């Protein structure tokens, strides 16, 4: 049979190419020597090996826990682990911010197990951002507790937990592992059923703290306010232990998150081997348009070199689609070369848990040489040590990149961490200025728990959980403000004030609704649009109302798990979008018109002789006016369509930079060209802001407008036009504090933007820096008498923004 014949062709002993180099060093040498590859490495730095700092296991550790440690071969602790134990044991809240693979789990497991050994009825709550992570921790905690002879048990409680296990979790589990969403909708609103957990709650562990930022983080801070309130009702006051990747502000972030003082443990005592950090920027294939060779294919090629040489490699992709494509390419390459394609495995969220566990085990055992993974493998899952990590594309934050890089070199030997940059603006920015990757952490996680939209929703949930007494604070929200907001809720009849003891008002939940079900931790507000597939009537997903304007307008192509759907009807009133599966060769990109009005200026400062910066509250009016059809792969613009949707208004905070009209006129170029160049500068500013602030580019809006009302009175100086103003605003109603930080860093922001323009290899502006001139179709680059990029740089010079040497 044909099948068997093919089987035999692959069944024989694998051939090892006789000429293939072996080992990491030989691959690196080969790359460097290659005339095509060599020049593309824009960074090659070796971080030296670090020796470990150790500390004895503290005397206070309970004997059975000490014994369990000894069985695991742990005779002494890393210095930061001992420090964390000391702080936690003395009842201090703390945050541990040490690199990946420095033994963070032990930092929070040790004080907990020690407590369990001394207090049998003690309970703890672990919060993880993903389900996979809590399952992983559940297993290792159970093993640890078994070895220490503790019978507390650890139970994961999430949407997948079966009903009888839920009961067991409520009644018996010593450690409850869950995620913020489940805590928010499933546990806190039913806290009476969890009385045993809450009344004995000693520790709350928040792992991967840095992932809780922006909107999600602001929500979590409020969920934690509720958690403490409920715990206090049941008579407990737990110690919070947070663990974070290395970010610029772990302590400040944790303080904001917990609303109280937090100690910092950041000096890692774990040893590390030498690591080469490299950045590979694929070569430019079209200089005019700034188009580079495919980063996916490049990553595959480099990874294949590594795997062929026997280097165990982890290849990270950005999306599920990406990793499937790269997996296929890699395996195809191996089949061609008569190597075993089973040495390469995929790993992503959609795979069955069993498959994933098997891959993890095979990787640890060395049976699999290469795994192509999404960020499902990024967080804490134990896969043993690897020689190399290749990241195809920048994952959006340095912290995430460092976490992926941290996968390499666990055993302390030399290792490689390689970033292959795509042609996206952020990637190109990093390729041009890769020192970001080796210096001290610069990213700051920002949250604003007092964002009023978010706060009010959680006050509703909190009053559902327990009535509020007048004078009671809500976490670090002072009593007066809490009362103010409750009064607001009372007016809307969601809470009802009654006279309690001593004449104080008590606010009771008074509505036939379950508020947590309407508050998604991943978005602001409670308005969601349901996406329904026509034909099957299946609910595909939900989307917040604001995003729906740009993503779900009629005729839009909605992409979901690698499938494309076209929106056939957007029922604006009833918040439903009806879609049908299609197979188009294009996707859509909404064109929006944005107008920003300043409502109140909170801070302002002159910058240089001309430029003026301000920060404060603004109203952003956004209207989707149409959409472009963009062809897959080539990204050509293949058509337009109109959209008629009402405009959206949002109050948020913004940074603005005003350029006087006189400067515009002083430039040696027509006004429209100068305005266009300014628009480009705004693009560059946003790119730079995203790298520094650890935020998704979607969370910062930018637009060019007027500082004053465009329809207001004519200018006093009688001139035509207005003072063009760049706005960079929090793209979240109410804001999460990004604008304030941008204002604080305004000088650096402008300097970095200038450096981005200067270092970009393009001639007249490309999407990676200042953006292409508007209206230019690909393939027909016009001869612009006033190239956008040059004009932009000139403008910055006039404004007194000098370049950096």
């Amino acid at each position, binding site marked *: 049979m044909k099948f068997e014949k093919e089987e035999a062709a692959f069944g024989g002993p694998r051939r090892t190419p006789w000429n293939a180099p072996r080992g990491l060093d030989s691959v690196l040498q080969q790359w460097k020597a290659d005339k095509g590859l060599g020049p593309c490495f824009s960074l090659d730095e070796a971080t030296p090996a670090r020796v470990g700092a150790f500390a004895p296991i503290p005397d206070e550790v309970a004997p059975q826990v000490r014994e369990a440690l000894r069985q695991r071969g742990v005779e002494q602790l890393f210095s930061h682990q001992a420090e964390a134990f000391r702080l936690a044991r003395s009842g201090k809240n703390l945050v541990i911010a040490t690199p990946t693979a420095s033994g963070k789990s032990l930092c929070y497991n040790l004080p907990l197990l020690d407590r369990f050994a001394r207090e049998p009825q003690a309970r703890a709550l672990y919060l993880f951002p993903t389900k996979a992570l809590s399952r992983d921790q559940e297993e290792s905690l159970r093993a640890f507790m078994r070895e220490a002879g503790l019978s507390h048990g650890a139970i994961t409680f999430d949407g997948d937990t079966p009903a009888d296990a839920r009961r067991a979790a409520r009644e018996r589990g010593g450690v409850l592992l869950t995620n913020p969403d489940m805590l928010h909708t499933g546990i806190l*609103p*039913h*806290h*009476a*059923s969890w*009385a045993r957990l809450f009344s004995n709650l000693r520790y709350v562990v928040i792992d991967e703290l840095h992932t809780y930022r922006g909107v999600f983080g602001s929500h979590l801070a409020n969920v934690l306010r509720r958690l403490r309130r409920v715990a206090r009702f049941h008579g407990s006051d737990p110690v919070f232990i947070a663990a974070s990747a290395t970010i610029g502000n772990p302590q400040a972030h944790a303080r904001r998150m917990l609303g109280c003082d937090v100690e910092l443990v950041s000096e890692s005592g774990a040893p590390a081997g030498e690591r080469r950090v490299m950045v590979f920027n694929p070569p430019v294939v079209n200089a005019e348009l700034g188009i580079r060779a495919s980063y996916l294919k490049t990553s595959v090629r480099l990874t294949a070199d590594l795997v062929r040489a026997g280097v165990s490699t982890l290849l990270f992709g950005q999306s599920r689609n990406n990793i499937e494509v790269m997996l296929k390419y890699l395996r195809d390459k191996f089949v061609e070369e008569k190597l075993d394609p089973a040495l390469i495995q995929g790993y992503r969220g959609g795979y069955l848990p069993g498959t994933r566990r098997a891959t993890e085990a095979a990787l640890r055992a060395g049976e699999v040489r290469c795994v192509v993974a999404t960020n499902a493998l990024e967080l804490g899952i134990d896969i043993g040590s690897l020689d190399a990590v290749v990241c195809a594309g920048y994952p959006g934050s340095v912290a995430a990149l460092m976490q992926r890089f941290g996968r390499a070199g666990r055993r302390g030997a030399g290792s490689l961490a390689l970033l292959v940059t795509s042609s996206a603006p952020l990637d190109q920015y990093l390729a041009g200025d890769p020192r970001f990757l080796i210096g001290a952490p610069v990213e700051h996680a920002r949250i604003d728990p*007092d964002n*009023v*939209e978010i*706060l*009010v*929703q959680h006050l*509703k949930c909190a*009053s*559902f*959980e*327990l*009535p509020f007494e007048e004078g009671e604070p809500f976490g670090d*929200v*002072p009593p007066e*403000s809490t009362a*103010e*907001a409750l*009064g*607001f*809720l*009372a*007016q*809307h*009849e*969601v809470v*009802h*004030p*009654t*006279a*309690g003891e001593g*004449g104080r*008002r*008590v606010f*009771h*939940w*008074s*509505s*036939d*609704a*379950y*508020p947590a*079900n*309407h*508050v998604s931790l991943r978005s602001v*507000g*409670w308005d969601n649009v349901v996406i329904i597939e026509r034909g099957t009537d299946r609910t595909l997903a939900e989307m917040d109302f604001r995003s729906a304007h740009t993503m779900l307008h009629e005729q839009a192509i909605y992409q979901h798990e690698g499938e494309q759907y076209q929106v056939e009807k957007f029922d604006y009133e009833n918040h439903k979008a009806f879609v049908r599966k299609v197979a188009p060769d294009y996707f859509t990109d909404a064109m929006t018109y944005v107008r920003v009005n300043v409502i109140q200026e909170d801070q302002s400062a002159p910058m240089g002789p001309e430029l003026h910066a301000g920060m404060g509250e603004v109203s952003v009016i956004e209207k989707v006016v149409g959409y472009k059809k963009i062809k897959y792969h080539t990204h050509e613009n293949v058509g337009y369509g109109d959209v008629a949707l009402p405009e959206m208004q949002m*109050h948020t905070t913004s940074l603005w930079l005003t350029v006087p009209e006189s400067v515009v006129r002083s430039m040696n170029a027509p006004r429209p060209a100068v305005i266009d160049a300014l628009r480009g500068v705004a693009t560059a500013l946003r790119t730079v802001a995203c790298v520094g602030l650890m935020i998704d580019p979607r969370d910062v809006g930018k637009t060019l407008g007027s500082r004053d009302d465009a329809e207001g009175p004519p200018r006093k100086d009688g001139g035509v036009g207005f003072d063009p103003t760049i706005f960079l605003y929090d793209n979240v*109603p*109410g804001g999460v504090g990004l604008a304030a930080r941008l204002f604080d860093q305004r000088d650096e922001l402008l300097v970095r933007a200038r450096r981005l323009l200067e270092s970009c290899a393009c001639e007249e502006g490309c999407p990676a820096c200042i953006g292409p001139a508007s209206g230019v179709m690909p393939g027909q680059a016009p001869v612009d008498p006033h190239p956008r990029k040059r004009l932009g740089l000139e403008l910055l010079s006039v404004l007194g923004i000098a370049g950096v040497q």
Partner: protein
Amino acid sequence: MDLKRKLARLTGVGPGGKPATNRVATLPEPSSEPRAESTPRAEASYPSSVDAHPAEVSHEDVAATPSPSQALMASSGAASALSQTTGAEPVAPKDPRIEALRRMLADWSERQGQTAARRGTIPAKPRPGPLPVVPQETPYGTVHVSETLLSPEHRHGSAPVAGALDVEGDLVARLALHEELAGVDFQRMLFLDTETTGLAGGTGTVPFLVGLAWFEGRSLRVHQLFLRKLGEEAPMLRVLAARMATSSCLVTFNGKSFDWPLLRTRFVLNRVATPPELPHLDLLHCARRVFKHRGAGTRLVHVEEQVLGHRRVDDVDGSLIPELYFRYLRGGDGSALTPVLEHNANDLLLLAALLGELVRKFRAGDGTAVPSGEDPRDLLGFAGVALRAGDLARARAFARAATGGAGTVGVEAHALASRLARMAGESQVAVEHLLQGLASARGLQAATLHLELTKLYEHSLKDLASALRHARLSAAAELPDDHRRRIVRLEGRIDRSTRGRALESGARPPRPGV
């Protein structure tokens, strides 16, 4: 935190909330109740809602007042609330920021009003009236109670309420498939039904009416505990706990999943010791099993209409109950809750009557004397329950009685009767039931009967030819492979046995080609 300014710009509070234009409902309401100072009127003194639009408020208040006497009461009510305001809170100095906030809130309310108008009309403001409960002093504090004692002859629909007293523990245990109930003293049972501020469950749902009923002699006492004000649950819960301590079991409808877990939560939240769990008879599950062949659903009202022949007049729609209560809390009409109390009392009577009826009908299965005239669908339901309870004699009696039913019910009854006969070792009877069932069975149902017949003929009666005949008609009831295997096996066995017989009789089987 510049919270005030931000609150003013909020675009809404989300589900559960109402536009603030509705805030007139939180204003001082005229009241004819003597307990005005202790009713939850204090909230009316919330300053920003009162002072924001004094002109608008008084205008609306007057406009909504139809008669002079009520207007008089209204003004006195407002005056008393006003005096409360000054008593409870010292007059705050006018803060320009507060003024600004109020202006903004007012603007916002206007905009919200427009949205609300699009969504639908706001229900009219209810008029006040007396609340149908009286305060009662107990060792646990004051509770507000509505109480009735029914005569021993009281009937709910066709059934006497006191019928519930005549039930036997072991029968109830079998009916409920719940062993624990066998030893319960049903003279001391406690009927329980709550009305709540919502169906969502969780800590924010409050039972504002706890309806209890128990027998005193053969008279049923209905004792409804009403929560006059949020935050006053503790005395009510203590009374409930005390009542439970003297009771032998709880009888509810869906209480296992709703009422009792909710009450347990209230005990925890109000720091009242949760009473020990009592044996719990949840009639929802019993009714579901017994009446499942009726197909009309097993909601309480359906059961009431169809089984007890009781039709409620002007019953309040359950989904409106939370809103009625909230309206009362916000100073609305106390008498508007009268239908809610009636609804609850009716549910309690229904519980007692239904329990009596279920057991009475189930008891009839003793021996063979199942009364004719019962609905065959229910008889079939009872047969199924008895079978599950392991009471085979009773199951057979009910199944046989149910065979009189028309259509599928009759066929199913025959199938069940056949199964029970086979379990009793009466194969011939079992076959007869199946054959009778076949007379009116169609399609898949017929195929299933044929399948049963073929098994009976093959294994019990050893009639292979009949087995094969029925097997050929049972294709639809089996997987194709199973069916093929059955046919092949039967054919093979028939073949072997005919050959065996031929050998015994000395005759040689015919040989081809000879």
